[in-house]
């Protein structure tokens, strides 16, 4: 913190020529800074991405050389494939329900865990527990929780007089069950919110309190606006993540019952490695890519309206 020991006030600071020189060199500095990523991108990511796009225009069974089929895969996907539409429906439903729920849920928990009470470190650890469990253990655990006759969930529902359904066995409930389960392990986004909350200057709250603002006002006037960059991050990441949900379907339901949890990624994986249609799977992947990209760009476009960056306020 040595550089901060003799701070100069912003308003009093004269515009020095060396700052201008610095601005000119900003372009190459930017590229210098991002060069690790850029190089890694060119070596490991760009090539495979382009290659997979090419594969989407071929028929490839992984054994023999890919064979060019042009847009046939895409044509087939859109015109003649009920499984695709089913998986789209399942995934979209999951995304539209779970993204807002997890966004709000994780924020609420983070706010709670940001309370300055004794033993909060302990509670934080508990709330984070589900996120550190190995996925395979979580899957087994939740299969037990959802057991219609002996599971904890229906046991609890029974206490309040509700006879719970056969969660994972009933096509009407399986997806709901998986969404419910996703809310159990919000630890990831919760922690990011928590870090975001810690980035909010406490002087803001102190000023607000002096102005007589109550907690609710502080939440909506200070916390949430200050947290928008974090919300922005979590929103984009949960959009990307929710469209790519895979583990639950793979480990718990295998897409069933009756395709009610046929997640897009599960369908894609099945095509690639079970049905040996990597070309088709690549086309599916690029469709998913386009969908996620559109949503992400929409969020980015809208962000200037609602995301508040401290560094851009001047």
């Amino acid at each position, binding site marked *: 913190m040595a550089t901060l020991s003799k701070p100069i006030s912003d308003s009093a600071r004269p515009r020095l020529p060396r700052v201008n020189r610095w601005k000119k060199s900003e372009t190459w500095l930017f590229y210098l800074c991002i060069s690790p990523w850029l190089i890694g991108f060119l070596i490991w990511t760009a090539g495979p991405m382009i290659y997979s796009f090419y594969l989407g225009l071929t*028929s490839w*069974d*992984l*054994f*023999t050389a890919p*064979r060019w*089929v042009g847009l046939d895969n895409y044509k087939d996907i859109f015109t*003649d494939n009920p499984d695709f539409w089913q998986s789209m429906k399942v995934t979209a439903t999951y995304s539209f329900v779970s993204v807002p729920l997890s966004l709000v849920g994780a924020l609420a928990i983070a706010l709670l865990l940001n309370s300055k009470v004794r033993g909060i470190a302990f509670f934080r650890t508990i709330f984070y527990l589900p996120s550190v469990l190995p996925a395979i253990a979580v899957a*087994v655990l939740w*299969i*037990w929780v*959802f*057991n*219609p*006759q*002996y599971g904890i969930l229906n046991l609890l529902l029974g206490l309040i007089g509700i006879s719970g359904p*056969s*969660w*994972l*066995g*009933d096509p009407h409930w399986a997806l709901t069950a998986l969404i419910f389960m996703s809310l159990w392990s919000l630890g990831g986004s919760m922690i990011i919110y928590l870090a975001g909350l810690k980035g909010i200057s406490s002087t803001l709250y102190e000023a607000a309190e002096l102005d007589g603002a109550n907690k609710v006002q502080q939440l909506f006037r200070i916390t949430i606006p200050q947290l928008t960059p974090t919300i922005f991050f979590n929103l984009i990441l949960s959009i990307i993540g929710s469209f790519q949900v895979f583990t639950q379907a793979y480990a718990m339901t295998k897409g*069933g*019952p*009756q395709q009610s949890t046929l997640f897009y990624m599960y369908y894609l994986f099945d095509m690639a*490695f*079970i*049905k*040996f249609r*990597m070309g088709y799977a690549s086309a599916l992947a690029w469709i998913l890519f386009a969908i996620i990209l559109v949503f992400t760009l929409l969020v980015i476009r809208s962000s200037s309206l609602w995301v508040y960056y401290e560094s851009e306020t001047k």
Partner: protein
Amino acid sequence: MSHSTKRWFSLMAVLMLALSLMSLAGKTTYAQGDSRTFPETGHTVSGQFLAYWDGHGGLAQQGYPLTEASNEVSPVDGKTYMTQYFERAVFEAHPENAAPYDVLLSLLGSLRYNSKYAGGAPDQTVNADADAVKFPETNHTVGGKFLAYWNSHGGLAQQGYPVSEQFTEVSDVDGKPYTVQYFERAVFEMHPENAAPNDVLLSLLGRFAYYQNPSIVASVPAATIRVGTWESGAALDIWNTLITNFNKMYPDIKISFEPVPDNYGTKLLTQIAANDAPDVFQVGDGDVRMFVERGGAADITPYVQGKASLPGIDTSVYYPALFQTGVVDGKSAFLTKDYSPLAIYYNKDLFDKAGVPYPKDGWTWQDFQDTAVKLTSGSGPTAQYGVALPGNWTRAVEPFIFQNGGDVSSPDGTKSSGYLDSPATVEAIQYYTDLYNKYKVSPSPADVSTTFQGVDLFQTGKAAMTMTGIWPEDGYSKDASLHFGVVGLPQNKARANAVCWAGLGLYKGSKNPDQSWLFLRYIGGQAGQTAFAANGLPSMPSVAASLNIANDANKSAFLNENQYLTPLPDMRTRWWNDTTNKYFGQALDTLLAGGGNVQAVLTDAAQKADADYAKLSTQP
């Protein structure tokens, strides 16, 4: 003409050429001294063995040498003798005897007959020719062309007494039926398609004996070969022991053992796509044809038949149905790792309590249904089910269809309509789904995947019977509180069963195929089959006999089902999983979820399967 037949004829051509050359060359052959190297197999015969070879029919009678002469322990008296393998005989030097008995031939015909037909060969016919000769020493008759051949080719000294009558045997070489007769030192095979003198041919007994001899060690360059399996847990101990023992024979072949505990298929396919797969790898029954047609698995037929100086495999030591599971379009691709037919386990205590007699082998659909109904009681947490049926597991439902004379697709796998929706199939599926929906003797698939997820319904006494393979048998036997028996599947119009099978193949891109073959042969042979029997059944009758499986009250029920195995429809087309199997499974889902007219659902499934087949198969 199949590959093997071609090979057979070319072998005969060489043989005849050699014979004529020998007769032309006459004594000059002898004059070359007491050692001769045969370029055909690269092995040398010398000394008394060469003299015996030349003096006893040479190539036609004895065949080419398969090995060099080496000291070997005789299975008869446990003593060590200088031994050399030829295609049709095994020579043993007995210096303790005076000539001409200083070279003796193994009684290969008798050995093979006894190992292959422990209870005598079926359907033997005594030759009724007027000139037929009955040998009182063995009580068997030789007549016709076989007698003529016997008389003109060394008779008793060379061929020995007959040990069987004539009968029909399917050749291991070309898979065709031939009339054969076993003698002590030879097996005569009638080839009416050939002109005399080639209408009677001898089996390659020496070769079979050589292939069967587990102590034969081929000399190959040092190499490291990679071995892939999906197995984990205790099964890995079996592998490690096998690898250790293999390395005692082949210390220069290093085995890099690569078990993949999960997502085996994903990893294997990635490696295949990158041309970097394990040299020897495990495969499931459903992927056999796919791996062959797409080119992941090498054609091991040449190795099986004995390539270069490497030992092959005597395929007659396997149960034909099991060996054939690894064969695609006449070419060998995989050897059996382990397998199991399906059977019904029944809980004796629950049967006793309900006063229901134990099921007996040969029982019928009606018996099965009645028994299951009697053993079904209660509901909710106290429910007891008559039987845990296999749900939408198509493999296990197919036997019902075959038992009723139905099928799921055409023999070439291209069409499902007319098969999957045929009256016989519909009737079978009606029976099967009625057990669920009408008689409610089995927990529904939804219950099994939720309420009973992870629960062994049979072991916990929730189901009085269960239909599955041999795998849980070991665990059940160790459970002192569980008293159970095993019985074959019930029958309707016929008996039928389906195999669950794991195979071992050789990667097509292997850089060390010879060394890989030696390992594959080892784990697919007697040693491996004995060890892997811990997880299933062995594919060799001799191993089943040595493990005394026939006398095991429970395991014998599985073994007995071998004879009713129907070739898997999975093998018919590489699109099986995308067409018939996919829609058949979905149809079962629909029907077992409680809905639908069986005929309508299956017709719909068959049409969808056909439409998808038409679409997929047009892609070259």
